[in-house]
């Protein structure tokens, strides 16, 4: 079977997962105790207005019927209206998505670029100082609450040392956002050749990205080290050594490529963590992404907005996992052939 059709098959396999996600988000709001109509109508509602809203939302119909309506709305990209802003939820999420993506992807990039070399070095030089460092980073990393790390970094780097800008959003007040191309301010700034804006955006981005990266660093470094140790102890590595292959080749072609497989699998878990931690980091740094949108919505019980947020995060996670699967397919021949 070709690689392309495997990837296609993986996409097909994601369909039931997406369906499950849709069902859960639907049930979260409709099948739980309490009257959504009263919820929507707000505190000052009269019984008449509640009935009216119930009819308008289709809540007077049976659950399957409601679900069908929900699906129909979804297929049109309609996630409902936010009661606090009066705007369509989908539009607001889309507007704020680039900010969250920029933060999450930068953090992932940082943590992958640090964790994998750290884990590999720790495994190759087992019990050396770098292994101890790796052990420390891993244990500290999983124990630190993201929101707490963020606050510590702000206190040290902004308040005490003045190295970082104030933790207030994506751009300081002196700059206007560059023309929208990718939605990633650093890129857009560079594309528009507004160097100062790009630099400002970059400075704003660094602290939250590092905070998030520190959180995802630990599981990745831990898995890299373990996978590398396992590969180093394997029988095929002994064969490679017995054949006199050079150390570099043994480590990179024989050990590291095999160690990649469990690392890639861990990436899926890391995405889950980092999308969740993203919400907390956005709150700490007043980052105008979909996470802070959701928190604002939570405070006022704006529930179409929360539902839309949960759904879009889940879809994002599915897409990231698809990317991981594709990567896995490219590395492991066994998946390619067996399907």
């Amino acid at each position, binding site marked *: 079977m070709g690689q392309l059709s495997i990837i296609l098959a993986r996409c097909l396999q994601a369909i*039931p*997962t*997406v369906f*499950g*996600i849709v*069902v*859960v*988000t639907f049930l*979260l*709001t409709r099948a*739980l*105790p*309490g009257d959504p109509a009263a919820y929507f109508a707000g505190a000052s509602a009269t019984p008449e207005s509640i009935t009216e809203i119930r009819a308008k939302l289709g809540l007077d119909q049976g659950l399957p019927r409601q679900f069908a309506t929900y699906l129909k709305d979804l297929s049109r990209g309609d996630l409902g209206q936010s009661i606090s802003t009066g705007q369509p939820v989908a539009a607001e999420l889309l507007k704020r998505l680039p900010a969250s993506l920029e933060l999450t992807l930068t953090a992932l990039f940082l943590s992958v670029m640090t964790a994998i070399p750290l884990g590999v070095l720790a495994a190759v030089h087992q019990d050396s100082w770098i292994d101890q460092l790796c*052990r420390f980073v*891993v*244990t*500290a990393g*999983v*124990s*630190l*609450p*993201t*929101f*707490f790390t963020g*606050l*510590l970094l*702000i*206190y040290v780097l*902004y*308040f005490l040392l003045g190295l970082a800008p*104030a*933790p207030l959003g994506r751009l300081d007040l002196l700059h206007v956002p560059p023309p929208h191309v990718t939605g990633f301010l650093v890129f857009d700034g560079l594309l528009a050749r507004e160097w100062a804006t790009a630099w400002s955006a970059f400075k704003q981005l660094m602290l939250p990205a590092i905070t998030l990266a520190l959180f995802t660093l630990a599981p990745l470094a*831990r898995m890299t*080290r*373990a996978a590398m*140790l396992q590969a180093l102890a394997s029988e095929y590595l002994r064969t490679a050594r017995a054949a006199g292959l050079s150390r570099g080749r043994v480590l990179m072609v024989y050990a590291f490529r095999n160690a990649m497989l469990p690392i890639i699998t861990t990436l899926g878990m890391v*995405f*889950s*963590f980092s*999308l*969740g*931690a993203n*919400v*907390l980091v956005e*709150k*700490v740094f007043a980052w105008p992404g979909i996470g802070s949108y*959701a*928190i604002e919505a*939570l*405070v006022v*019980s704006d*529930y179409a907005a*929360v*539902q839309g*947020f*949960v759904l879009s*995060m*889940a879809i994002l*996670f*599915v897409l990231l996992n698809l990317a991981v699967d594709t990567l896995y397919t490219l590395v492991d021949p066994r998946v390619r052939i067996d399907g």
Partner: protein
Amino acid sequence: MADTSFMPTLAIAVPRRSAFARGFAHFRYVMTSNPVTFFAFVLFALMTLIALFGPALVPHDPLATLADKALKPPGAGHWFGTDHLGRDVFSRVIVATRLDLLISVSAVAISFVCGATLGAFAGYWGGWFDRLSGRLLDTIMAFPLFVLAMGIVAAAGNTIQNIVIATAIINLPFYARVARAEVSIRRNAGYVQAARLSGNSEIRILLLKILPNTLPPMMVQLSLNMGWAILNAAGLSFIGLGVRPPTAEWGIMVAEGANYIVSGEWWLALFPGAALMLAVFIFNLLGDGLRDLVDPQRRT
């Protein structure tokens, strides 16, 4: 190494002892073999004591507000300083231990029991039950877990009870998967087949022959997940879910202190944050120590 079996097999005569004595000897072995695990256990015991007796021992009422003493830095009267309402941070951190542990322990207990049962049945009998439960777990895992917990609490209502339930649900897949994997590798092990030949019924085999053998890896998972559960519960209250002011809870205290960080009042957020970190750290250390004991090959 192909030839590692040269290690002399342990052939010490084992006197017949009570199960309790054997259990205690094992516990002592666990504690003495690794000082870090011992240290973690001492801290754990201390934390449990604080959770039990903390509220009776604290120097100040954690809820008493003193407007004239607001935002005092740490000093002799208030070891951890006071917050924006003049409440004693030390007392609040100590008192919060009980609530934080209660939330995470009950959440983990629920998910451990439900997850292990689900996973054990799925792993032992397979078939449609396995497929159905697998589908269910996959659907839970398809969400970024913290986001799902947010969604559950938002929908079910903003209460501590719902925080516990949401944390339990997002932890469930981990236990179910470990239990399923551990049971299914043993389902046709030699000693299980032998138990079938000895006339044990299937349910008896699962409960008496397989489950006891899967407990060590499950306990490791339990301890490692505990830290994660604390982090999740604190994260939820940090964004304003579940616990409401003025209740003392680490997550919400960090959230309240966050506003004062940029103006330099660090103690409001630092101490509850550090307490939270220490709690997670203790559970992670314990989990690592237990894992080393269960499987020395996988030291990381």
